């Protein structure tokens, strides 16, 4: 492996340097039919799950085929996408905000040929390379974070939990049988890279043990005041630590009762790790949405306070999600999102219908939002 220079000269880093040019101009990448009809689309229609036709005022038709992708994609996989885009879509392709790939073509025949081609491609273990679906009243791809594959703060894996959940919900991906769209999202820790806190169902990695303190190193590794200031509940204070040979070092102490395991201190200071095999796992949230349709956007609510990590296939997690989806599917009205259904029937009925255990962990006890979530009325249902 010989080092190949790109032309960059470390002795003169500013020589020929190009900076702040931003992304390529998006219009370069528009298929001609989109360039021509931009802003003049009349309507769209889902022809079958995953295949949508967009019709323009000019009468032009654009067929889009939606294919689920792992957000983690190899160069080889993307090259295969490119090969398909060259063959069926004149070399144009796009991704959706939910990590789906959309192939675009201007003819229905090409779209149908592409569909057959896509479905014929499988991975060695039998998984679809290019599952088609995710449109209309279905579950679309689960947006997610890095998890154990690449992140330093996760409480669970992301790609793995998503793979298992999508396997369990596959029928709802490739069919449009639900009362409304249902968006599942995944974040592997409370940082929530991506808006999982407003999803119909959110899978959230969560730690349950306060940080450990690597006292012999914290003084060298960290800005202690930053770690202290990072704590949202003021649970960290300065403390002295005495080594075996009598040396006094600056360290911190954690008021464990105040810790809500957010990991902010760890982000500020690597000498305060909190990951733990038994302590870590998943919080399941439900009932959020981002659309303003019919009613305002809503936060997801915690409906299961903890599910342990069960790699590699997380059976308790997937069974619980499937139970919620099935109960919602059976009981909700057409167009009703999961959270709208839960509010209509009442959360006490939600827990009954989804066969979820209600525990004290589900009563909010965090600062001002807590009070607004308690019931100040006698209007309730017996379950």
């Amino acid at each position: 492996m010989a080092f190949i220079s790109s032309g960059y000269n470390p002795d003169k880093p500013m020589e020929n340097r190009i900076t702040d040019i931003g992304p390529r101009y998006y219009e370069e990448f528009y298929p001609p039919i989109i360039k021509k009809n931009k802003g003049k689309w009349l309507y769209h229609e889902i022809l079958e799950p995953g295949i949508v036709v967009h019709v323009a005022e000019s009468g032009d038709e654009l067929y889009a085929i939606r294919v689920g992708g792992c957000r983690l994609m190899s160069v080889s996989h993307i090259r295969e996408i490119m090969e398909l885009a060259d063959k069926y879509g004149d070399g144009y392709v796009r991704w959706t905000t939910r990590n789906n790939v959309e192939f675009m073509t201007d003819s229905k025949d090409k779209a149908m040929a592409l569909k057959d081609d896509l479905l014929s491609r499988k991975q060695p273990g039998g998984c679809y390379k290019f599952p088609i679906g995710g449109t209309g009243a279905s579950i679309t791809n689960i947006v997610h974070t890095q998890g154990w594959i690449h992140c330093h703060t996760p409480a669970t894996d992301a790609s793995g939990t998503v793979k298992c959940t999508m396997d369990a919900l596959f029928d709802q991906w490739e069919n449009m049988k639900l009362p409304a769209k249902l968006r599942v999202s995944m974040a592997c820790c409370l940082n929530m890279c991506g808006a999982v806190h407003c999803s119909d169902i959110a899978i959230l990695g969560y730690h349950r043990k306060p940080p450990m303190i690597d006292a012999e190193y914290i003084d060298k590794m960290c800005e202690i005041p930053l770690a202290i200031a990072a704590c949202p509940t003021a649970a960290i204070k300065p403390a002295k630590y005495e080594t075996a040979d009598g040396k006094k070092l600056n360290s911190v102490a954690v008021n464990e009762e105040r810790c809500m395991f957010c990991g902010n201190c760890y982000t500020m200071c690597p000498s305060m790790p909190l990951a733990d095999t038994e302590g870590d796992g998943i919080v399941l949230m439900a009932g959020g949405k981002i659309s303003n349709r019919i009613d305002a956007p809503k936060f997801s609510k915690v409906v299961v306070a903890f599910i342990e990590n069960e790699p590699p296939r997380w059976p308790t997690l997937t069974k619980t999600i499937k139970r919620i989806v099935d109960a919602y599917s059976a009981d909700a009205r057409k167009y009703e999102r999961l959270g709208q259904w839960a509010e209509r029937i009442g959360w006490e009925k939600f827990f009954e219908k989804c066969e979820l255990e209600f525990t004290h962990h589900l009563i909010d006890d965090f600062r001002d939002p807590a009070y607004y979530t308690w019931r100040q009325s006698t209007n309730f249902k017996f379950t």
Partner: protein
Amino acid sequence: MVEFKHKTPKIDQLETGPWTSFVSDIKREHESRMENPKGIDFQFNQNCCEDLLGVLELSYEHGRTHWKHGGIVGVFGYGGGVIGRYCDQPEMFPAVAHFHTLRVNQPMGHYYTTEYLEQLMDLWERRGSGLTNMHGATGDIIFLGTSTPQLEEVFFELTHNINQDLGGSGSNLRTPSDCMGQSMCEFACYDTQEFCYQMTMEYQDELHRPAFPYKFKFKFDGCPNCCVASIARSDLSFIGTWRDDIRIDQEAVKAYVGGELKPNGGSHAGRDWGPFDIQKEVIDLCPTECMRWDGSKLEINTPECTRCMHCINVMPRALRVGLDRGCSVLAGAKAPILDGAQMATLIVPFIKVEPPYDEVKETIVEPIWDWWMEEGKNRERLGELIKRQGMQKLLDVTGFKAIPQMIQEPRSNPYVFWKEDEVPGGFKRDINEFRKYHQR
């Protein structure tokens, strides 16, 4: 058959089931790197994919991550765009001991030509792991895994050969992102791509050189359906809307009622919901009860409409957004870290969205940044600052007049912080003058 040096019995179980498997995909990339049919002179460890799977298997065994904090890596002159990453078992997995990420500023709307993708793939196959995220949660193309000496080389090739820049990371403006907007969607009320592009270009300095208290996100949604989730996760959220009447095609309405057109663009085709019932499915579900259907004509009382999109979503061929279009601007959304989740608050009900977007920049973005950079604490998002100092303060700095559209309901406590200049005579009074008329 390419051999794998690590046994991975746990993650191998993720190679079954219908959904596409990232494990199979990483194995495929490993095989491609081992066979190397094109004779690429790999600049990053050829074995990285198998070592990455090895690390993941170990995490599946331990139930814990094996990645460490980033440390300081980056490209010269930028503070953002690169995230350092190291494995905490470098002896076991030397090929991924250093495994840094680059964020590449995605073209708006995530449209690509295969020609451009090929340039990116070539670069990343040679100088990185051959693994990407398409895309990260903020929207960037993510190049996943390379070593420190390759960072400048990747950046040099990106900018010189591909005319493409890095995105944002750290306490700066994060790469702005948008929905597909008018490019393919008939609901979009403004050109999300153009607006997003121009704002990205205008604020390159803020994007690449962290000078903020914490991250700051712009997101652009073409309509209130909010497909890019701006209202839930961006410090400034631009959501398309309109002020005039929803355009109605009465013939198409009748076609929906008659069953010739499928409601909601055919999105409920997987189940028999019975014949379409406009009264039940549209009129009665209208949140403001501003619609009327007399069996032959649909009427909408525009002043009562809140533009929730439901009727338009259900009957896209009959109803279209109005023609007097622009966007609403909302501020302060964030996920729960640190102080609990916040949804964005409406600060501008309507603004026209027209190049060069100076009004948005000068009356919204820049005054808010000046305030937040002056007053925001380390790692305090804009939403938290608004909560801490009050929405009145936000109005002070932006100069917007308080209007009822900004709130859900007026306050239920009367503890109003009157300012001295709002009360006639001010706060300073003479106690001796007071005592002339009031005994001690």
